[in-house]
């Protein structure tokens, strides 16, 4: 078998074929480099950059979204806290106001009662004074009438009656 190979010059290197191989291969190399490898490799590179940039953009967007979410959550939390505070404050204000109003009303009513009592007693005093004065006048008048009557005995009864009449009239 080996003998066949050697005999048939299978290992011989033909110079013509070497030249043709070199020319063919180098031409193929030049043509493929310009029309195949350059566009294909640049397409691969473009895709690589595109993918990398897309991932970076996506990560950036994710980061921003997280940030936004956090800030919105904080705003919500603040708002809730504030509303609670406002409610609490309102309730407290209402409570104080109610108590104040109640106190004031009690005081007012007390004061009014006091004033009424005072007025009543004042009026009573005044009427008593009047009555007293009237009684004095009456007794004086009666006394003076009596004195007059004693002068004229006969008319005693008449005077008393008249006096009583007068009294009734007044």
């Amino acid at each position, binding site marked *: *078998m080996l*003998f*066949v*190979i050697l*005999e*048939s*010059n*299978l*290992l*011989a*290197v*033909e*110079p*013509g*074929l*070497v*030249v*043709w*191989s*070199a020319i*063919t*291969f*180098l*031409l*193929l*190399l030049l*043509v*493929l*480099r310009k*029309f*195949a*490898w350059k*566009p*294909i*490799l640049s*397409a*691969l590179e*473009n*895709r690589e950059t*595109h993918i990398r940039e897309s991932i970076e953009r996506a990560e950036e967007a994710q980061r921003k979204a997280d940030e936004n979410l956090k800030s919105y959550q904080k705003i919500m939390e603040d708002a809730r806290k504030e509303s609670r505070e406002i409610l609490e404050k309102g309730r407290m204000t209402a409570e104080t106001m109610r108590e104040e109003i109640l106190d004031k009303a009690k005081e007012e009513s007390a004061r009014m009662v006091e004033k009424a009592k005072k007025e009543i007693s004042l009026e009573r005093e005044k009427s008593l004074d009047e009555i007293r004065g009237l009684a004095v006048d009456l007794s004086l008048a009666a006394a003076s009438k009596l004195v007059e009557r004693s002068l004229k005995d006969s008319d005693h009864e008449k005077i008393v009656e008249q006096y009583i009449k007068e009294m009734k009239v007044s």
Partner: protein
Amino acid sequence: MLGYWTTVTDPEKQGPDDVGAGFILEHVQDHVVIELPTVLGIDMSITIHVLMMWIACAILLLLFALARRQIGLVSRGFGNAVESVVVFLKGDIIEAYLGEEGKRFTPYLLTAFFFVLTCNLLGLVPGAATATSNLAVTGTLAVLTFLIGQTAGILKKGIIGYFKSFLPAGVPGFVAPIVFFIEFIGVFTKHSALAIRLFANMMADHLIVLTFLGLIIIFKSYLVALLAVPGAVALELLAVLIAVIQAYIFTMLSAVFIGIALAEEH
């Protein structure tokens, strides 16, 4: 047995019935298709292997003309298939063995892979020949790898640095000349092996398939075909695998040798 083979290869002794090994050699041997005059003492005739190389080139040009339009930011269809091969070679061979520096050698290594692969596979087509089973073709490719790698090494390290890199650091003075010599010869050996590996594999592929079929003729019995044909088919399938593997190995070793030439120390 050996005598039989030699007799059938001798055209004068080859009778009409003794076509045993003749067709084997016809398949693997180069022969002139178009006679051309000699230029500077070199016979420039177009042989079957030159023709096969041109057919390979035509197929590749057609393939990449088709694929190119389909490869872009979003590749589709056939372009995807071609692209995946290019990506594999770029990542697993060129960047793996040459790193950033590999960019400059990408066109050469990609062309070498596709050219060798197409030539290898074309050899499996009935009636065609395998250009890569010719030592002149594989030798030319190996010489190109050699020239590219060594030139890049000299340009990178300077002529003194280039020769210095054949001497590993820490070698004692008295063995230095021997080590230098071995390393220097090693460069040529490696590239010769590159040429012979591809040539021998492609040659053996065809020899063994044809030998299986030749058994039918040698034994002059159709019964032998019951074993020989399935065997030949199995080996032909193996040959498809080997065609791809050898193209891959040639490209990978080219990248490795260029990488060694570029390395500061090895």
